[in-house]
Every structure is written in structure tokens, then in C-alpha cells.
């Protein structure tokens, strides 16, 4: 059973902390513990327990917290992020235009009279909830150009400063999106450039759901595996193929799953065992009760360990030999064109084949191989990109910059070709081409 609480902030779970700087942190909530957020302060774990996930807090007194509406909203009813309503008239706009222009050149650190030392001093001087606001007030006082800025740029400036000094944070459930976000921020190559939208597409094209029996290649340290376990809700099984002696599922350290749970849901097998099962099966014969009785306890322990290992290996090899997996999901840097043809037959009929790669060029090579191999129907390469907007009323536009990349996904369906089937004749094929300009499955 999955004993994680997905809805309420609970002791002894790993959670994601989102900071006003848009930074993220994964922490374990030890009862009576203290979590340090660096320059954003620190808080007592007990203060956040019992609230639903997604709750935002502000550090108020010492390490105590109070719930707030969101990172952008202070507890005050009116706060700086609110925009003036109504259309600005021409005069105001012209003024804004001129002032905007005027300040672009002038603004710089040189007119910022508050030094970093000053700020550090202020931070040390008190631990009240108003410290962030206090620092901001001081900074405004030290900013000569501030009153010359437009209302909008003042607000933008304040918001930026706020992000740096307000002692606020949100406690989020550590779902797969949060886990991925954490790795994207900290170690993008670790997750092979995977984006949240590509992860979502992987899960959907892979038809990942409770009760499925999946074959997975995951070189993201377990982030993809974690997403699958989330979608499976404790039902089904993932056979995870790995290339090293030991599997790397470091991301699952934060997952809060019990070892028993992981052992039940995830079976691991290395490529040697996968591709040369007969050699790698372990010949094992249980010793008789009598023999066991004669063993020293240390020997007996060793025996049990070896028995367990042999059973596990033989069992997963057998699972692979039985095949009929409900999907193959591959997020790997290994050369897929030489790998896939050797493992495709373990996937059941009409089940999805979903291959992720950071580079479209490598999926291109893979698609050509799969198109020749009749066992995958209609493989295509998909690209999905999410573009976030600024939604300030009256100033709506896409964000000016965003992360490039995000990877590509090849999706096809495992099928069972029949010997000796002829495609339709040339004449029909010609008419068909005219009707549907897309490459046709019967052409391949």
C-alpha cells in the first residue's frame, strides 16, 4: 500500500517548498524539527503540519508561521500586487511613456544607496514578520529614481524586491511534476532535458494507469518511474531495465515510499539479464530442512540472502520472458535503433511504444528503423511546448523568455505482422495517395 498522504501536510514526508524567488527545495518534515530556507528564514515543522498541501505561509515570530493566501498575497487585504483599474487616458500614457523611457537608462545599482552590508545588518536586527517589508521600505528610501517611476514599474520593482526578502513559502505535495521541476532547477542533464509537458505526454501515450504491467527504461534517476508510480496508485508493476550493476533511482529517496512498496511495484533487471536470460538465470536448488538445520547461523543467513537474490532474479527474468507488457516507455541515452528491435517482442499486441529523447535527430533515426520493422505501427515524433503568459490584467503577454528544449517523443503501437500479406495494388495505391497525402501505413 502507498501510505503517502497526498492531501494534508504530514510529518515524516518529503515535500516541495516553493519560495518567492521561484526557487524550489525538497525537505523532509521531521516532527519538532526546524527547516532552514536560507535567506528566507527558517520555520518550525510543527507549524505547517495539518494544513492541506498547497498552503502558503509567512514566517512571523521567531520560527513560527501563519497561513497566507498565496506567495503573492500578504495577509493585508490591499497589497502591492494589485493594479489600478480602468483605462489610462492619453495624458497618463504619454507620461508613462516618457517616464518609462527616462528611467530605463538611469536605473542601475549605482543609484541604489542601500549596500548589501546594510541589508545584512537589517536582516540580523530583527526576526519579525515585518522585516521583509522593512527592508523594502529602506530600499525605496534609498532609491532616488523611485518616485519618478511609473506606477507599473514601481510595482514591478517592489515585486522583484519582495521576492528577495519576504519570508514566505508554499508547502506543496511532492508530486512527479514537482519532483521534475526540482531536478530541472538543480540538474537539468540528470533528467535529460525532459519538460513537464513531455513527461505528461509520455504518461498519456504510454497509457499509464492503475494495474498496468510496464517495461521501463529510465535514466532520469527515477523521475519517470516516480511519475508512473503516481499514475498507478499502488496497482500493477514496473519492470525497470538498467545498464549498470545497480539501478539508479535516486529520485525515489524523496518519494516517501516504503522499501516494501517499492519492491512490490518495481522489479529491476540489467541488460545482460534481459538480453541473455538463459545464461543469467541462477541455478538454484533449495537445500533440505536437514541441511539447513546443520548450518551455522551466519552461513544460514548468507544462504537466505543468496536464495532471495536468486528468486528475485529468476522471477524478473521470467516476467520478461513471459512478456506481454502493457507498454514500453524508454527515457534513455542508449542507442535506440540497435536496442529496440531486440526488446520489442516483450511488449503485448496493440500496446504503446513510447520513446523519449532530448534530440529529434536521434528519434528520426529510430523512426526509420521502426518503420522498416513491421512490429510498430505508425510511429511518429511528437513535440510539445508550453508557453507561459504574464496575466496581469491590462498587461497580458507571453513571458519574454523561457527555457528552450524539453525533448521529443516517438509514439507508435506494437502490432503483430502476418506473413504473406500483400498491400493493395499500385492503381489503388495511387488513388489512395491522392486522397490522403500523409505517408500511409501500407506504403512501408
Amino acid at each position, binding site marked *: 500500500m502507498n501510505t503517502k498522504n497526498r492531501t494534508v501536510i504530514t510529518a515524516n514526508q518529503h515535500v516541495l517548498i516553493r519560495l518567492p524567488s521561484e526557487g524550489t527545495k525538497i525537505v523532509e518534515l521531521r516532527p519538532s524539527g526546524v527547516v532552514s530556507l536560507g535567506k528566507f528564514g527558517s520555520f518550525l515543522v510543527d507549524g505547517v503540519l495539518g494544513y492541506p498541501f498547497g498552503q502558503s505561509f509567512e514566517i512571523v515570530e521567531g520560527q513560527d508561521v501563519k497561513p497566507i493566501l498565496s506567495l503573492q498575497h500578504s495577509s493585508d487585504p490591499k497589497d502591492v500586487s494589485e493594479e489600478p483599474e480602468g483605462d489610462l487616458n492619453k495624458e497618463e500614457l504619454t507620461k508613462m511613456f516618457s517616464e518609462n523611457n527616462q528611467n530605463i537608462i538611469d536605473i542601475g545599482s549605482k543609484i541604489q544607496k542601500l549596500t548589501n552590508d546594510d541589508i545584512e545588518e537589517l536582516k540580523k536586527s530583527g526576526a519579525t514578520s515585518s522585516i521583509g517589508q522593512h527592508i523594502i521600505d529602506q530600499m525605496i528610501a534609498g532609491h532616488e529614481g523611485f518616485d519618478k517611476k511609473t506606477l507599473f514599474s514601481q510595482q514591478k520593482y517592489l515585486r522583484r524586491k519582495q521576492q528577495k526578502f519576504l519570508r514566505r513559502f508554499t508547502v506543496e505535495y511532492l508530486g512527479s511534476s514537482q519532483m521534475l521541476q526540482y531536478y530541472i532547477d538543480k540538474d537539468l542533464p540528470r533528467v535529460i532535458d525532459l519538460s513537464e509537458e513531455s513527461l505528461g505526454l509520455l504518461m498519456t501515450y504510454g497509457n499509464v494507469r492503475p494495474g498496468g504491467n510496464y517495461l521501463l527504461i529510465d535514466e532520469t534517476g527515477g523521475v519517470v518511474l516516480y511519475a508512473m508510480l503516481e499514475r498507478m496508485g499502488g496497482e500493477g508493476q514496473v519492470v525497470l531495465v538498467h545498464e549498470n550493476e545497480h539501478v539508479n533511482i535516486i529520485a525515489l529517496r524523496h518519494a516517501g515510499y516504503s522499501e516494501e512498496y517499492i519492491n512490490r511495484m518495481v522489479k529491476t533487471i540489467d541488460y545482460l539479464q534481459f538480453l541473455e536470460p538463459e545464461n543469467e538465470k541462477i541455478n538454484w536448488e533449495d537445500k533440505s530442512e536437514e541441511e539447513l538445520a546443520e548450518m551455522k547461523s551466519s552461513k544460514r543467513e548468507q544462504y537466505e540472502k543468496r536464495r532471495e537474490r536468486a528468486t528475485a532474479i529468476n522471477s524478473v527474468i521470467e516476467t520478461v520472458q513471459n512478456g506481454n507488457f502493457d507498454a514500453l516507455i524508454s527515457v534513455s541515452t542508449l542507442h535506440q535503433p540497435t536496442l529496440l528491435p531486440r526488446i520489442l517482442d516483450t511488449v503485448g499486441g496493440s500496446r504503446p511504444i513510447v520513446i523519449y529523447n532530448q534530440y529529434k535527430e536521434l528519434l528520426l533515426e529510430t523512426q526509420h528503423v521502426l518503420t522498416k520493422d513491421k512490429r510498430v505501427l505508425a510511429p511518429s515524433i511528437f513535440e510539445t511546448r508550453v508557453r507561459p503568459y504574464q*496575466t496581469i490584467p491590462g498587461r497580458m503577454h507571453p513571458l519574454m523568455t523561457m527555457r528552450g528544449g524539453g525533448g521529443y517523443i516517438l509514439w507508435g503501437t506494437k502490432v503483430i505482422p502476418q506473413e504473406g500479406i500483400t498491400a493493395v495494388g499500385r492503381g489503388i495505391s495511387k488513388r489512395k495517395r491522392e486522397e490522403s497525402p500523409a505517408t500511409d*501505413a501500407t506504403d512501408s
Partner: protein
Amino acid sequence: MSFYAYKDIIEAGDLVLAFISRGATKPITVTPGEVLNTRYGQFEHDLMIGMKYGSQMAGKKGYGFIHLLHPTPELWTLSLPHRTQIVYTPDSSYIVQRLGVGPGSRIIEAGTGSASFTHSFARSVGDKGKVFTYEFHEVRYNEAKRELEEHGLMKNTVITHRNVCDDGFEIDNHKVDGDVVFLDLPSPWTAIPHLNKVIAEDRQVGICCFSPCIEQVEKTVKALEDDGWTSIEMVEVAGKRWEARKDMVKHVDDVVKRLKDIQDRKSQGIEKLRNVNSTAPSEVSSTESTPEPPSKKQKRDRGFNPFGKGTRIKEGDDQYEWRDVTKVESEIKSHTSYLTFAYKNPNRKV
């Protein structure tokens, strides 16, 4: 056959998606005695029974084939006649991922539309979750209801004929208790205030509003703010499909050879002409610079023709050199809708 799990062998009564060609997948219910007619031949239902899902099936006359696929929400979406605007997979998969939809989620969806996203939700929430979907349009409601029943999705799905903008989301005999909301309505801002009565009170609730026009987004953002939703963010999802193709490599050396060949053939022509006129012995040396006889099969003599100009060449033909390239769909979906996400929290211990 079920949208909740795979089975292996086709039985009578099963829904099978007959994959005819890219862009042409036909849903059929396997019925003894019936025949599927396609332009690639005829396919008898009787023969399908007992075959494995995923099998390639030959046409009655010995040529042509189809593939017999097991339904999934994604393949179903592809096989749908476009009754109404569909939420395409790049959008739906992102919404599901971002809002953390999974086993146990309780979904509120309005409107049902073609019910394609409903299929996807029902698959994902499993038997511990629930999908409440609302459709105002009667014809479409009836069609979706019939389909959900036929597809066995009523196990975790409740469809209601309702104008949620006027009449809200409450349902007799059900505590909706929704934690994921998806609104695909022309005026989501009129539906948002009604949500308070049906969303969960003990945990965070996520919402996605799906609107084609930017002005709808502005109104939606305002309505969400007024109603206490936070972390509002709007995004667009751009999905593209690429195909692997091959492009012929044309070396400039071959171009030069060909130009020389043309030159030589011309001067030979002049030579021949001269010979005819003068009966002078032909100069043998003039043929020495002729490039090696072309090795490619050529129906008529085009001289040295390294790229097969004027002939019909199959992409990837072994006699030529090729490079792998990708080509995007000739027409891409440049916009589906704007997706406005937000969250609502109880803001108290629960």
C-alpha cells in the same frame, strides 16, 4: 474490452479500432456475420474473433490489410469523427500532469463535448476516483452518455445533462467533492462561482479553464481572483507531429560531371554532324572524357543522370545516397485554446 485494462484476444461484442491508414481509424463493434468495407478491402468480423489485439489482418481478396487495435482514450480520440472541438492529447496530457490527476482524483468536467477527455480522465482516476461530467446540449449529452455506457466507463463516471452556468454542479445522491476542475465552456466566469458548493473543503483544488479567445482569459482570471483562487497562470500548449523522411544527397561533383557529359554529347553531336557532311574519320579521343557509363537503371538515355531527374524515384532507393530528415505536418495546429490554471486552498488546518 475495457478502457481500464488491456485484454489480449478479440471476442464478439468487443470494440475494436480498425486502423486503416494514418488518419483513418474506424471503431467497430465485432459482430458475427458483419463485414468491414474499406478501400483496402473487406474484412469479416467472424475472422477477427479469436485474433490477438494488434494483429495485422488481410483483406478478403488476399490483398490489402488493416490492424486491429485495442481501444485507449488516445486512439479513440484519433478515431473520433470531429463532432465538436476535441481537447487534443498535447493539451489533455499536460492538464492531467500539471493538476496531478491520478488514481483517486475527483474530476469535475464541463462540458462533456465529444467525451474524449472524459475517457482520459476515467482511465486515469481508476476505481478509487470519480469523474463528474456535465453537458448542456441534449443531443450531445445523449450521444456521450450512450458512448460512456457502451465503453463501460460508468463504473467511475457520472454524466449529467445540465447548464452549469445557470444551474451549478450539485447532483442528487452524490457528494461531488471535486479536487480537479476542467471547464471547457464559452463563459467559464459564469460557472466559477457555482464551484464553491461542490469542490473539496479539506484539500487543495486545481482548475483549468480552456478558452480559445484572449478576452475570455481576461474575464476568467478576474472571476478566479474574485472567488479566491490563487497562483493563477495562463499557458498555451503547442503540439507538433514530425515524420522521418529521406532527402537525396546531390554532390556538386556529380553536377559538374553531368555538365561535362552534356558538353561532350553536344560536341559529339556536332562532330557527328560534321562527319555526315565531310565523311572525315571521327576523332576517337573525343569520347575519352565521357564519364563512366551511368550505373543507374534508366529507361531512356538521359546521359549521365546522377540524381535520376525526370524519373520516378522511391524515397530511400538504394541506388542513391540519402540523408535522414524530419518534416513537420504540412498544416499544424497553431492554436487550440488558452489554458488558465489556478488553485484554491482551504487556508486552515483540516
